[in-house]
C-alpha cells in the first residue's frame, strides 16, 4: 500500500471539495471492504482517501413519495434486514442475502457495492480492466471460467455488484453529487462496459459521490435468484433479477436482468418477451431461461455459465410468481 493523505469530513460539501479531477487524486472510502484490498494490492493508489462514513446525510433507508430511498451509506446488512424493502423489493433483499459474509455485510455499504471494482483476476493482478500482456488478450487466451458470456468486448469482466441487476430490473435511479451540483442516472445507464482500461465501469466521475438510490414504488412481483457454489464468501456464477407486472395470472410486462454474465447487468429483452403474455409455470420459465441465453457467446472455458444463467432466470421467474419447483 502506498502512503496517502486521510480526510474524514462531516458534510457532503466538504467531502466533495476534497475529491480531485483524476482517479489518482482521491478515493472515496465507505466500508473499505473493497477499497482497502485494492490499495493493498496497489491496483488503486489514491493520493488522498476521503472517508465518507461520518456524513449523516448519506445514511439510512426511508420511504419517500416516489418509493424507497436507500442512502449510499446504508450497509448491506441494513438492506437485508429492512422490512420496507423486504415487503416491496424482495429482489433486493435476496441480492443482499448472498453478499459475502455477515462481517462484510456489516461493513460494506450499498453505495460501495455499486461502485466496487470488478473481481476479474487479471484486473486484480494489475493487468487492467481489459487485460493484455505482450500483445495477447489475457482473458481470451487464459482462464476465463468466471468471465462474461455476453457483450461484444473488449471488456470481459463481469459486473460485481449483486444489487446492480435488481436495481436495473426495478428501474431505480442513482443520485450523484459533485462540486457543481447533482445528477440522476437510471440504474441501467450507470453500469458501463469500458472500451479501454483507463475508463471506469460505472458512470461516476472522480469528483462525484454516489449519495442515494431511489427505488420507485411498484406493484411488480420481483425476485432475485443467485447461483453460487459456496454458501458464504463466494461470488455468484450467474444471477437473475426479475420484475413482473401481472395482469391476473399472466405476465403483462417483464424486466429480466442477468448478473455476473457481462461487464454490466445484462437486460434480456428476449427473456422478457418469452414470458410476457403467459402465466409463469415451470415450462414457460424454462423457455424464458433458454431465450435469455440464446444470444450468449461464451469464451473458451465458460459455456457452463450459459446453463447456469438459464437456470437462474427460470428460478427467479418462478420465485417472483410464487411457483413451486
Amino acid at each position, binding site marked *: *500500500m502506498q*502512503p496517502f493523505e486521510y480526510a474524514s469530513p462531516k458534510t457532503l460539501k466538504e467531502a466533495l471539495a476534497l475529491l480531485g479531477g483524476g482517479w489518482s487524486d482521491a478515493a472515496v472510502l465507505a466500508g473499505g471492504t473493497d477499497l482497502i484490498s485494492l490499495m493493498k494490492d496497489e491496483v488503486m493508489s489514491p493520493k488522498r482517501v476521503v472517508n465518507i462514513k461520518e456524513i449523516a446525510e448519506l445514511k439510512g433507508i426511508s420511504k419517500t413519495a416516489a418509493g424507497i430511498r436507500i442512502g449510499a451509506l446504508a450497509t448491506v446488512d441494513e438492506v437485508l434486514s429492512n422490512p420496507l424493502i423486504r415487503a416491496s423489493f424482495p429482489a433486493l433483499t435476496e441480492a443482499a442475502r448472498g453478499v459475502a459474509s455477515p462481517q462484510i455485510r456489516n461493513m460494506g455499504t450499498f453505495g460501495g457495492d455499486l461502485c466496487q471494482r470488478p*473481481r476479474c*483476476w*487479471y484486473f486484480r*493482478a494489475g493487468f487492467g480492466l481489459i487485460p493484455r*500482456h*505482450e500483445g*495477447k488478450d*489475457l482473458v481470451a*487466451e*487464459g*482462464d476465463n*471460467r*468466471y468471465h462474461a458470456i455476453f457483450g461484444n468486448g473488449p471488456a470481459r469482466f463481469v459486473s460485481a455488484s449483486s444489487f446492480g441487476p435488481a436495481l436495473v430490473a426495478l428501474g431505480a435511479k442513482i443520485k450523484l453529487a459533485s462540486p457543481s451540483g447533482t445528477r440522476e442516472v437510471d440504474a441501467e445507464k450507470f453500469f458501463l462496459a469500458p472500451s479501454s482500461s483507463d475508463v471506469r465501469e460505472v458512470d461516476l466521475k472522480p469528483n462525484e459521490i454516489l449519495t442515494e438510490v431511489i427505488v420507485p414504488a411498484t406493484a411488480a412481483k420481483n425476485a432475485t435468484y443467485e*447461483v453460487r*457454489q*459456496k*454458501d*458464504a*464468501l*463466494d*461470488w455468484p*456464477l450467474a444471477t437473475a433479477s426479475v420484475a413482473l407486472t401481472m395482469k391476473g395470472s399472466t405476465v403483462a410486462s417483464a424486466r429480466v436482468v442477468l448478473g455476473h454474465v457481462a461487464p454490466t447487468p445484462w437486460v434480456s429483452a428476449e427473456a422478457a418477451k418469452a414470458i410476457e403474455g403467459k402465466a409463469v409455470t415451470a415450462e414457460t420459465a424454462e423457455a424464458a431461461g433458454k431465450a435469455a441465453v440464446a444470444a450468449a457467446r461464451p469464451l473458451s*472455458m*465458460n*459455456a*457452463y455459465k450459459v*446453463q*447456469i444463467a*438459464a*437456470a437462474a432466470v*427460470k428460478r427467479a421467474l418462478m420465485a417472483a410468481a410464487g411457483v413451486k*419447483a
Partner: protein
Amino acid sequence: MPEYRWPEMSKRKVMGKRLNRLDGVEKASGRAKYSSDLNKPGMLHGATLVCPYAHARVKSIDTSAAEKHPGVTGVHVVSPAGTEIQWAHWEVAFVAAETELAARDALKKIKVEYEVLPHVVHEKDLNKVQSRAKAAGEQIEGDPDQALKEAAVVSEGFYGIPVLEHSCLEPHGNVVSWTPDNKVELNPTTQAVTSIRGDMARAVNVPVANVHVHQDHIGGGFGSKFQPDRWGVAAAHLSKAAGGRPVKIFLDRQIEQVIAGCRPSAFARIKLAANKEGKITLWESQSWATGGFTGGGSPPIPYVYTRIPNQRKNHSAVSTNTAPIRAWRAPNHPQASYLTCAAMDDLAAKMKMDPLELFLKNVDLTARADTYERQLKKAAEMAEWKKLWHPRGDSGRGPLKRGLGIGVCTWGGAGHDSTARCNIHPDGTVEVELGSQDLGTGTRTVIAQVAAESLGLRVNDIRVKIGDTNYPPSGTSGGSTTVGGVSSSTRKATLNALEKLFEEVAPALGAPATELEAVDGKIQVKGNPAKSLDWKAACAKLGVKTISETGQNIPRDAPKEGLNTGGVGGVQIADVTVDVETGIVKMNRIVAVQDCGTVINPKTAESQIYGAIIMSICGALMEERVLDAVTGRMLNNEMEFYKLAGIKDVGEILVHLEIDEINDKRGVIGLGEPPAIGGIAAIANAVANAIGVRVPIVPMTPMNVLNTLSGRMS
C-alpha cells in the same frame, strides 16, 4: 525398570477421556501468540521480492538504490545474475528495514533485468507436455495380456486431480536474530522444532549448540513446514548485517499460496477388468503427475486393493514451471485413493453391480481383508446404504439428484523418535518437557493426559512444556508420528521419574519402593490407601532435590514395548445432492469409519477426522490451483478464488472410531493422515452415483459437473 505398558482400558482414569484442548481457550480468545504475532524490541521488518515470470534468467540485479532507501538495513540477494528461475514467485531478494513500509518501498527500487524464457505450466494433457515428461518405465505383475483376454468385463476411464495449495492460515516465515556472539535465536512456524535447529545451523554455518528455537503455536502446516527455507536463512543474514537485531519475514498471502507448499496432481487412464462375479483380475494404468519443476509425486496405485493379480503400470513425472511440491497430509494417498476407488466404482457401474458389493468382494486383494470388510459394512450401515443407494444415474425426476459413494484409506502412523523429560519438584510441581510441537491437534493435551495417568494426578497438575530446543529432542510432526512418539516418551519419562520418587518416599511409608503406587493424587502402598502420603507431602520428601528423568520412544523397539505401532485402514462413505441445472454439489453427509489403536483422547482424535473430512470436501468440490497459460502465474493466489469450504458447505460428519479392547492392545497409532485420504474418492463416487456419469476431473465444481453432463469434458 517400571512397567511401561498402558494400563488396561477399564482402569484408566485420565486417558480415554474426552477432554477439551488445554490451549483451546487461549487460542479462541486470541491470547495464544504465534511466531507471526511477535514484535520484539528493535525488530526489523523484512519483505520478499519475487520473480514475475515462470521461466527466466536473471541478467542483472542492482540493489544500490534499495540499500540507500531510508530505513533499510540490508538487502539479501538469493538469485544473483545468472540464476535460471523455474517458476513464478521464485524468491529473488529480501530486504530488511525499520518499518514494513520502508521494506516494501525499497523492494520496488531493486532493479532486476530478466531474460524471459518459454514456460510450460499445465500438465493435464500429457500429449502436449511429452517433452517435459519422464516415464518411470513399465511395471508388470502377472500376465496382464492374458487377464485381458479372459476378462468378462473391462472398464476404462480417465481421472484427474489437480495441484492443491497448503494454504496455511499462518503463512510461512520466522523471526530470527543472529547476534555478534554468533548465536542464532529462531522463532519459526514449523512442524519440526527440534530438527529445524540443525537445519538452520547448517544453513548459516554455526554450531548447532548456538541455535535456539522457540515456538508456542503454529497456524497450520499440513506437511509444508519443516525447513528454515530461503526466507528463514535470509532473515538470519539480514539480522547479522544489522548487528543482530531480530528480523521478521513472513510471506504475503500472494506469495504463500504459490511457493510455500502444494501437493502434486495425478492423472491417469485406467483399465480394470473383472470376471463374471466381479473379482478384479487386471489393473492397467498410464499415469502422470506434476510435482513442480523438480518433478515428483507418484500415487501408489492400485491403492489398498494392491493385490490385483495382473498389473501393467507406467507413470510419468511431468516437470512444469511451477513451484515444487511439499509433503501434504498423507502424501500421494488421496490422489491414489481417488484414482483407484473411482475406477472400481466405474467398473461396478459397468457391471450393474452395487459398488459396495464390489469393494467387499475384493477385500482379499487388500492387506487387511477383515478390517476393510468390517469397516465397509459398518460405514454402509451408518450411511443407510441399503435405503439410499440406487443404481448409477437412477436418481429420479427433478434437478436435485442424490448419490452415495465409497472411498478407502490406509496409513502407518507409528510413533517417531521422541525424548521427554519429567521434572518433579519438591513442591509437587510436575513438568513434562519435549522439543515437540502441537500442530493444533491436541498434542499438549494428550501429553498431559498420559503424564497425569502415569502419575496418578489430574491433567491440571501437569505443566506441559513443548516448542523449545532447550527441551529434549522430539521428532518432526509428519506422517502422523507425533502422538505415538510423544505419548510413549512421556509415559516412560513420567514412570521413570515416579520410580525415583518412590525411592525417596519408601522409608516414610515403611515399604519398599517397588511396593508403591501413585493413585488419585497419592503415593500409597499398593492396594492400601491407609498407608499413603498425598502428592505434595510425598514430593516434600525430596528436600532441595528435583527429580529429572527422561524417557525415549525408539521406533525400532516400540512394537515390542506395545506403547505404539502403525498400520490402519479406514472407509468413508459420502452422501451428496447434485443440482444438475447449476452443477452445484451439496454435501449431505460423510460417514467415516476409522481403525485406530489406543486412543488417548477420543475428542481430539475425532477432531482430526472432522478436520480431515472438511479438507477432503474442499479438495473434492472447490480447491484448485489455477494457472495462467500466457503469463505462467497463478491466478487465484489468494483465499477468494482459491476456494475452501465454509461451515455451511460441509454437511453432517459422522465419525466412528473403532475403539475397543482388541484395537487398544495395539498401542497408540497416529490419526492425522488416514482420515484425510478417502474423502475425495467417496465424494467423487457419490457424484457419479447421483448424476449417472463420472466427472473425471476433480474438483467437482459447477464448471466440471456441467461440462461433464453436457459432453464438453474432453
